[in-house]
């Protein structure tokens, strides 16, 4: 994605329906935006669409939240953030709404979600992604999360990534299936 990471600040509408022309634009830019002075015109030429329409459609998709941003997605390993720790927590159901918000507000937490447990294998229901330049840094940050959760947390662990197996970003299938 770049299933995506930066949340659009713009309010979004829930009933957006992907139309054919937006779909063409998404397909044409999945690999990236053209790196030319007027990328909208370049896309327009490719798709037989006026440049103004291309730009207007992207503006609208961004307003609707379909496009979060048109932005650079760094390879965080290459930027020095080598340690990517998925910290996971078993938090009391009745407390997770309040505590999840507090954890999500910590400045070093990049993504924070509630997800389902799969008992008995997987008892963790709160996921907070933490990046660092060392394991110690990730562990220190996890300690701060533990402080926030206190007694409402029954267990936790950190899953470090040891290899990127694939990173292509979100792809629509060309045949529309």
């Amino acid at each position, binding site marked *: 994605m770049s299933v995506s990471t*930066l949340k659009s600040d713009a309010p979004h509408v829930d009933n957006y329906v992907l139309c054919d022309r937006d779909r063409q634009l998404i397909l044409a830019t999945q690999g990236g935006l053209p790196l030319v*002075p007027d990328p909208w015109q370049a896309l327009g030429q490719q798709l037989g669409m006026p440049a103004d329409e291309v*730009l207007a459609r992207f503006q609208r998709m961004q307003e609707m939240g379909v496009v979060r941003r048109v932005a650079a997605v760094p390879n965080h390993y290459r930027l020095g953030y080598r340690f990517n720790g998925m910290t996971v927590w078993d938090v009391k159901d009745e407390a997770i709404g309040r505590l999840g918000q507090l954890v999500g507000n910590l400045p070093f937490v990049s993504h*924070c979600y509630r997800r389902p447990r799969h008992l008995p294998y997987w008892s963790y229901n709160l996921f907070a992604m933490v990046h660092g330049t060392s394991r110690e840094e990730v562990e220190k940050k996890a300690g701060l999360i533990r402080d926030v959760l206190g007694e409402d947390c029954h267990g936790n662990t950190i899953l470090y990534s*040891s290899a990127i197996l*694939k*990173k292509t*970003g*979100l792809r629509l299938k060309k045949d529309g299936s």
Partner: protein
Amino acid sequence: MSVMTERAIGNIEIPDFSDLERKIINRLQHGLPMVRHPYAAVAEELGTSEQALLDTLKSLLDRRILSRFGPMFHAGEMGGGLSLVAMRVPEETFDRVVGQVNAFDEVAHNYRREHELNMWFVVATETPEGVDEVLRQIEETTGFPVYNMPKEEEFHVRLHFKI
């Protein structure tokens, strides 16, 4: 979709970035302004030329310091399906399963993680029902069960790596 070879993470060199590269990496993670000449607008903000910005951006992409530059689509908002999925894959079959899982276009990211559940990937589909169908196919192809962990609540999403 080609299957990407596994890349080990331990031994990546950190490049020494120029001032302009730093500025561009930091600024462009926030998003391009939606104007007719967006690169010119950002170049002006950063005190450089449009051509220098474009050249540097191309170079950062070629060197894979940026994995991508473009629209960041949100599958959920498109009315599609999105989920995080984990698998427990025996070491001796790991490479085979990576190839089988990555061959699905709907698998966007896939990470190996140090845990009994050792493979974690994101599935994005055009319809909400699509996720279950893809997961069924992955189980059938690989012969291993999947653990579907769709988000139930989003507390915060913000990712910005300052360099």
